[in-house]
């Protein structure tokens, strides 16, 4: 039980290595289960115990996610969920692949379906070929979404080797080259229970749920886990393309800028620096500051202005993007603003208000089963407890922000322009 937020949480590692996190939400009917492997599009290379580099095709994690839903009789696992009235789905990001369902009925059947289909891959050459047409249409759907494509091009400008340069789904060529063997190899290495986390946020009793999970897992045997470690990409510190322009059938020009930063290996240090940098960004670029309002008043940006920052193990970035007709002016303004963020005075009152907003936002997150489950799983992946992370946030001081900005090198920068045809 976490008394501060009245959340009843149970953490358990099963004998096969599967990490289980159960949250009992009093007064709720529904349950949300999330089964996560920390294998996403960012891990298209891994290193085996004997030092061999294992290479996966671009988009393979996403292709595998599609094919996991194939039942052993050739049918579709989604049908099994639907027949008991349960909505299920999955997604692949750069950092992980997740399978999940939400139900307001008894959790036992869908939970067993989830555990069973994610823990067994049964595919045929024919079904893999058939899936290619579907995935190609998915890639085309995202490719014609201007904002998604635009952000992707900023990453493609920043990175030379790192998989962030590619779309999560790969490209049409990489998808069309996938074989049954590629998928089995990828599955064997990345879906062992020891690597995976199961999070369930539910109105149902946690002890009951744990028994269902243990009952399911006790019947299964798994081969020894394939021990792999992260691959160190030979990513240069400089950006791949300093300036890039492309066109789409749109009516409003877009301008974006990306600053390439170094990654941070230690997860706890990274977590703190990541929050500190995000707070700095909020202090300068949210409506807590007058800067963005001034740019709106001068019609340099509109409501599409977005900013983001992130530190990973082997990457880091700050990006900005907006619809604009005044890209040169915006470039100049952003350049001055980001230098001010590094060198300017930090306003303590604004810092305090942003800290409170973020604390509130973390408390709100516990209302949303899907986001709560995701936050718990992600926190576990990086080795920081979710509730501990709220306490860390409370403890962050202006000194931490000073600390993080000292390390930021703004010299590796690129910009991208998307224009009308």
């Amino acid at each position, binding site marked *: 039980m976490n008394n501060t*937020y009245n959340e009843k949480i149970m953490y358990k590692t099963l004998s096969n290595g599967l990490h289980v996190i159960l949250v009992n939400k009093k007064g709720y009917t529904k349950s949300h289960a999330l089964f996560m492997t920390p294998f996403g599009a960012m891990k298209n290379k891994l290193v085996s115990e004997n030092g061999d580099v294992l290479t996966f095709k671009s988009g393979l994690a996403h292709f595998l996610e599609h094919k996991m839903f194939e039942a052993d009789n050739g049918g579709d696992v989604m049908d099994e969920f639907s027949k008991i009235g349960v909505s299920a789905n999955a997604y692949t990001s750069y950092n992980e692949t997740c399978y999940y369902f939400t139900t307001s009925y008894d959790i036992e059947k869908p939970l067993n379906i989830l555990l069973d289909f994610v823990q067994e891959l049964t595919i045929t050459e024919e079904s893999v070929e058939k899936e290619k047409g579907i995935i190609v*249409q998915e890639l085309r759907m995202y490719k014609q979404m201007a904002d998604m494509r635009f952000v992707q091009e900023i990453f493609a400008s920043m990175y030379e080797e790192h998989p962030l340069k590619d779309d999560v789904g790969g490209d049409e060529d990489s998808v069309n080259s996938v074989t049954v063997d590629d998928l089995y190899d990828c599955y064997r290495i990345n879906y062992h229970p020891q690597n995976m986390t199961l999070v369930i946020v539910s109105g149902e009793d946690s002890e009951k749920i744990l028994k269902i999970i243990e009952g399911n897992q006790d019947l299964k045997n798994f081969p020894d886990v394939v021990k792999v470690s992260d691959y160190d990409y030979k990513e240069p510190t400089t950006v791949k393309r300093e300036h890039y322009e492309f066109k789409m059938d749109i009516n409003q020009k877009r301008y974006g800028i990306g600053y390439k930063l170094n990654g941070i290996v230690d997860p706890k240090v990274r977590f703190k620096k990541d929050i500190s940098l995000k707070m700095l960004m909020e202090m300068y670029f949210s409506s807590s500051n007058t800067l963005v309002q001034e740019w*709106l008043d001068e019609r340099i940006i509109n409501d599409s202005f977005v900013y983001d920052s992130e530190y990973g193990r082997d990457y880091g970035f700050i990006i900005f993007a907006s619809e604009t007709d005044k890209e040169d002016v915006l470039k100049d303004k952003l350049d001055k603003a980001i230098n001010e963020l590094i060198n300017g005075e930090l306003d303590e009152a604004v810092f305090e208000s*942003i800290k409170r907003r973020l604390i*509130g936002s973390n408390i709100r997150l516990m209302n949303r089963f899907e986001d709560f489950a995701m936050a718990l799983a992600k926190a576990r992946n990086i080795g920081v407890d979710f509730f501990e992370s709220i306490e860390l946030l409370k403890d962050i001081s202006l000194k931490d922000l000073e600390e993080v900005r000292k390390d930021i090198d703004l010299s590796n920068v690129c910009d991208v322009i998307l224009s009308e045809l």
Partner: protein
Amino acid sequence: MRKFKLENNVNIQIIKSDKFKTDHIAVRYVLDLSAKKASARSLLAMMLTNRTAKYPTNKELTNYLDMNYGINVFMNTYSLGGGHLLDVRTSAISDLYIENDSLNKQLDLIDEVVFNPLVDSEGLFDDELFEEAKMILLSKITRRNDDPATYAMDKACKLFGKGSLFSVSVLGSEEQVQALTKEMVKDAYYDMLHKARVDVTIISSLPEDEVESCVRKHKFAYETSDNVGIFYDYKINDAVSEEETRRIDQTSLILGWYSGIKPIDDEYYALKLANIIIGGDSTSFMFQEIREKNSLCYNVYSSVFSIDGFMVAYAGISYENKDKTAKMMRDIIEEVKKGEIDEQLETAKLLYCNSLLTQYDSASGMLNFEYQQNILGLHRNLDEVIDRISAVTKEQVIDVVNRLTYLGEFTLKEVNDNE
């Protein structure tokens, strides 16, 4: 749960719940939807929650919200059949977790946003605020057009709903936004506080008596109207087929039907279930036939516009497969009419009920469900709705599918750089 009316006929509903970490208030103003007034109302919604007389800059308002652990305040506009909904929402961390006087702060904030806008002595909105909101509204319209799937759906709705309120966009057109004046927005503001039907729903962990006593200190509007209609007449025209071309990577194909069934009709739940069977889920005929068996697309679905009585089907495909996909969609409707849907119907009932139960376990889902019941005058609770869904027969589903009139198709064709 408690329901009562204020002296000015504002409908109040209080739901006591301590399962959320936040307290929530929704204030809904509904006016008759009008193409001429749509843009002014959308602009109004954007301005009211951006800054106020007490917080004359967005920074000052943001700092106040942030210092209170991120109180949320939003105002959006939607079409609600023949009604135009102006929807004010606030939420704040419950006093159970942070001593914040959450309910009173939200009620005061709604007063500030609704009754204390940044206007001059003649009631005209601040110049800078007005021009900024206009620029942003124009950007929103452009952005919708830049997204091919959204653009195609907007065009299809205009095509199928030609001559009716179904074709009206709540954002308005670029020309309408350009032509907006501060006087028009002042009129829209007057209508909101004098001519709308107003419903307030509150979810709080506090006892209902305490919430009622707090709420009664506020008025939410000066006057209200009970004569706002959300249903409208629609004359079915001959089926149409239109095609447009853009330099995009995928073709959007949209087919439309009209059912004439409203959510107050007995057949409504049969229509919702028919939609799930046709294209509303991964077990649906469209998903299975078009995506899974023929690999023609990634995204395919059908959807019902509940209050308007329209149904549309969408698929993102290669243009060469357009005719094949459209035929499959029409054939599926004919197939469902033959009635071999026993298994699909049972699945659809389970899925629909699960979705309602799941939504009701969130504050926004609860607010939406209760409002829908109130505005329709049905006042059914969740159990009653689930009983009605469970009682739908196969014959009723076949009957509603037989009542679907085909309206035509709209295609947004992809053209590659090589063509």
